[in-house]
C-alpha cells in the first residue's frame, strides 16, 4: 500500500522508557486511595510548540507502554503496535507526539501488585486496589499534566485500550479532540465475563497463588497464568483463522493415543501459555480482567449509552473486524449508534478480516489506510 503524504514507513528506532513519580493521592472508583505511585511511559516524535499534536495510545490486556520501536539492548523487543506507529506509518511520528503508558496495576514498571508498598515494605500483592478504566484514565490525565499536554489530538486504543479512549471522551471531553476506537465494546457480555472468570479461577486455584501474596513464597502461579493465557488466546482468534493456521496438523506423523501434545494447536497454546507465564504477573492479570468486566459507562445512566456519551465532544473513528467474535461488530455499532444519537462526528468501518479479535494488531491494508487517512485529517486540522 503506497502511503500518501507520508515518507516511507520505518521504525522509530531505539527507544527508552521513562518513569514519573506522582505523590498526589489518587482516589479510585472503589473508594480506595493510592497515596503515591509511579507511571512508566514512552514517547515518540516531538511535541510541537503549541503542544497540540500529542496522541495517547492505550494498551489492552497483555501489553504496556512499549508501543513502538525497540530497545537498544534488546533489538528483538519490538513495541506491540510498531506496525501502526512510526515515521511514515499510519500514526506518523513525524507529525505526532505519541505517548504510551503502562497502566496502574500493571507489571512492567508502573505501580502494581508486585511493587513494594512503602507502608509495609512488602509487595502490594492482594492488597493492591481493584482498578477500573476510569481510574486508569484519571492517572493518564495526570501524566498528561506533567508532560504539559492540555489536550490530546487523539486518544487511540484497541480492545481494552479502546475502552480507555471511549472513557477519555466522557471523563475529559475538553482534553481529547479525537478518539480512535478499535475492536471495542461498550461493556462486556456475559460470555466475555465468563471467559474472564475461567481465567481468574485458573489463577486463584493454582496452589502457588497463596491468596495473591505469592511473592513472599518465592513462587508464581505459573500453571494458572498459563491456562488463563491459553483460554484468552482462543478468544482472540477466529475459528477460521485457527483452522487455517493449524488445521488438524499433528506434531508427529500419527496420533499417539495419549494426552500429551498430538495436535499443532495444542503445542501452540502451550507455547503461548509458557511464554506468557514467564513475564506476566498473575495479580495484574486478575486486575485487568476485572477492569474489563466492570467497564460499563452506561450503567450510571440507566443503561443508556447515548446518555453516557452525551458529554463527549471528540470526533470518533470506530473500527471493527467481521471475524472478531470477542467484541463483534454489533458491539461497535452500539457505540456508533450512541454517538449518532448525540450527533457526534463519527466514522465507522467494518473491516472484513479473517483474524478475529487480534486483527486490530495486524497489518491489514484497508484498516491501516483508514487509520492513516483519519490521522492525516487530524494533522491537517492541527
Amino acid at each position, binding site marked *: 500500500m503506497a502511503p500518501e503524504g507520508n515518507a516511507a514507513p520505518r521504525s522509530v528506532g531505539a527507544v527508552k522508557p521513562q518513569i514519573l513519580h506522582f505523590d498526589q493521592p489518587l482516589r479510585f472508583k472503589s473508594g480506595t486511595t493510592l497515596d503515591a505511585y509511579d507511571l512508566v511511559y514512552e514517547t515518540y516524535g516531538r511535541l510541537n510548540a503549541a503542544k497540540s499534536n500529542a496522541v495517547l495510545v492505550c494498551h489492552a490486556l497483555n501489553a504496556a507502554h512499549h508501543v513502538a520501536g525497540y530497545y537498544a539492548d534488546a533489538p528483538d523487543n519490538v513495541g506491540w503496535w510498531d506496525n501502526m506507529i512510526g515515521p511514515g506509518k499510519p500514526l506518523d511520528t513525524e507529525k505526532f507526539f505519541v505517548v504510551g503508558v503502562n497502566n496502574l496495576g500493571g507489571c512492567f514498571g508502573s505501580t502494581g501488585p508486585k511493587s513494594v508498598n512503602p507502608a509495609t515494605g512488602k509487595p502490594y500483592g492482594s492488597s493492591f486496589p481493584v482498578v477500573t478504566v476510569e481510574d486508569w484514565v484519571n492517572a493518564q490525565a495526570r501524566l498528561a499534566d506533567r508532560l504539559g499536554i492540555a489536550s490530546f489530538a487523539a486518544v487511540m486504543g484497541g480492545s481494552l485500550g479502546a475502552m480507555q479512549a471511549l472513557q477519555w471522551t466522557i471523563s475529559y471531553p475538553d482534553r481529547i479532540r479525537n478518539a480512535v476506537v478499535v475492536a471495542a465494546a461498550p461493556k462486556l457480555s456475559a460470555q466475555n465475563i465468563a471467559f474472564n472468570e475461567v481465567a481468574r479461577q485458573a489463577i486463584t486455584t493454582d496452589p502457588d497463588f497463596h491468596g495473591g501474596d505469592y511473592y513472599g513464597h518465592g513462587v508464581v502461579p505459573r500453571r494458572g497464568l498459563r491456562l488463563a493465557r491459553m483460554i484468552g488466546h482462543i478468544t482472540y482468534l477466529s475459528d477460521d483463522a485457527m483452522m487455517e493456521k493449524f488445521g488438524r496438523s499433528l506434531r508427529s506423523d500419527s496420533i499417539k493415543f495419549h494426552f500429551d501434545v498430538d495436535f499443532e494447536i495444542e503445542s501452540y497454546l502451550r507455547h503461548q501459555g509458557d511464554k506468557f507465564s514467564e513475564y506476566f504477573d498473575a495479580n495484574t492479570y486478575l486486575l485487568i480482567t476485572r477492569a474489563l468486566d466492570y467497564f460499563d459507562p452506561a450503567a450510571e445512566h440507566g443503561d443508556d449509552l447515548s446518555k453516557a456519551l452525551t458529554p463527549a465532544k471528540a470526533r470518533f*473513528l470506530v473500527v471493527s473486524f467481521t471475524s472478531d467474535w470477542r467484541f463483534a461488530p454489533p458491539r461497535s*455499532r452500539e457505540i456508533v449508534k450512541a454517538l*449518532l*444519537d448525540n450527533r457526534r462526528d463519527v*466514522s*465507522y468501518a467494518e473491516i*472484513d478480516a479473517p483474524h478475529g479479535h487480534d486483527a486490530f494488531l495486524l497489518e491489514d491494508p*484497508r484498516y491501516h489506510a483508514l487509520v492513516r487517512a483519519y490521522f*492525516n485529517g487530524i494533522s491537517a486540522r492541527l
Partner: protein
Amino acid sequence: MNGREQVTLSERSDFQAIAAWIKPDSSVLDLGCGDGVLLKYLRQTRDARGYGIDIDDANVLACVKNGVNVIQSDLERGLAGFDAGSFDCVILSQTLQAVRRTEEIVLDMLRVGREAIVSFPNFGRWDLRLQIALGGRMPVSPDLPYQWYNTPNVHLFTIADFESFCASHGIRVLERVVLHGGRPVTTLVNIFGSLAVYRIQKS
C-alpha cells in the same frame, strides 16, 4: 454498488437541486454516499451535519479522506439501527435503481427521516424508449451508461412509475425537479427528463 464513485461534483446536476432543499444546520443521512462529495457539498453550502452510509471499503476510505462522516453498512439490511425521525432528511441520490429491496428502503427512509430526497435516472426518456422500441436493444445513455450485462442497476423505472409508487404507498411528493443535461425540464417530463429529483414525505 452505484455509479457515483468516479463521478465528479460538476457532473452531478442533482446536487444543486438537493442542496436547495436542505435547510441550514439540518441533519442529513446520505444512503449509498460514495466518496462523500455530496455530504461535503452540503456541509460547505448548507452547514448540514451529515452522515453517509456505504458498504464499499474504497468509498469508506474516500469519505474519511474527504473528512466526511461515514458508517460502513449494507443498505440492503435496512436502517434498523436508526431511530424513527432521527434525521431531518434522508437522501438516496442515484442509488434507488441499484438497490434490490426498493420498497423497504424508501419506506425506511421515510421512517428515519422527517423528509427524504430521492434522485434517479428516468428510464422513460424518449431516446431510451426509442432504443428499445426501434433498436430492440436495452438503452444506454450518459445517465445509464451500462450494458445490460454489467449494470449495477437492478430496477429501471420511469418518472410515471415512481409517482404511481408514491401514490400507492402513501407517500406525498413535496417537490420535484426534473433535469436534462443539467437544465430543468418543465414540460412532458417523463419524455424529456433524464434525471428526476423528488422531495417526499409520509402522508
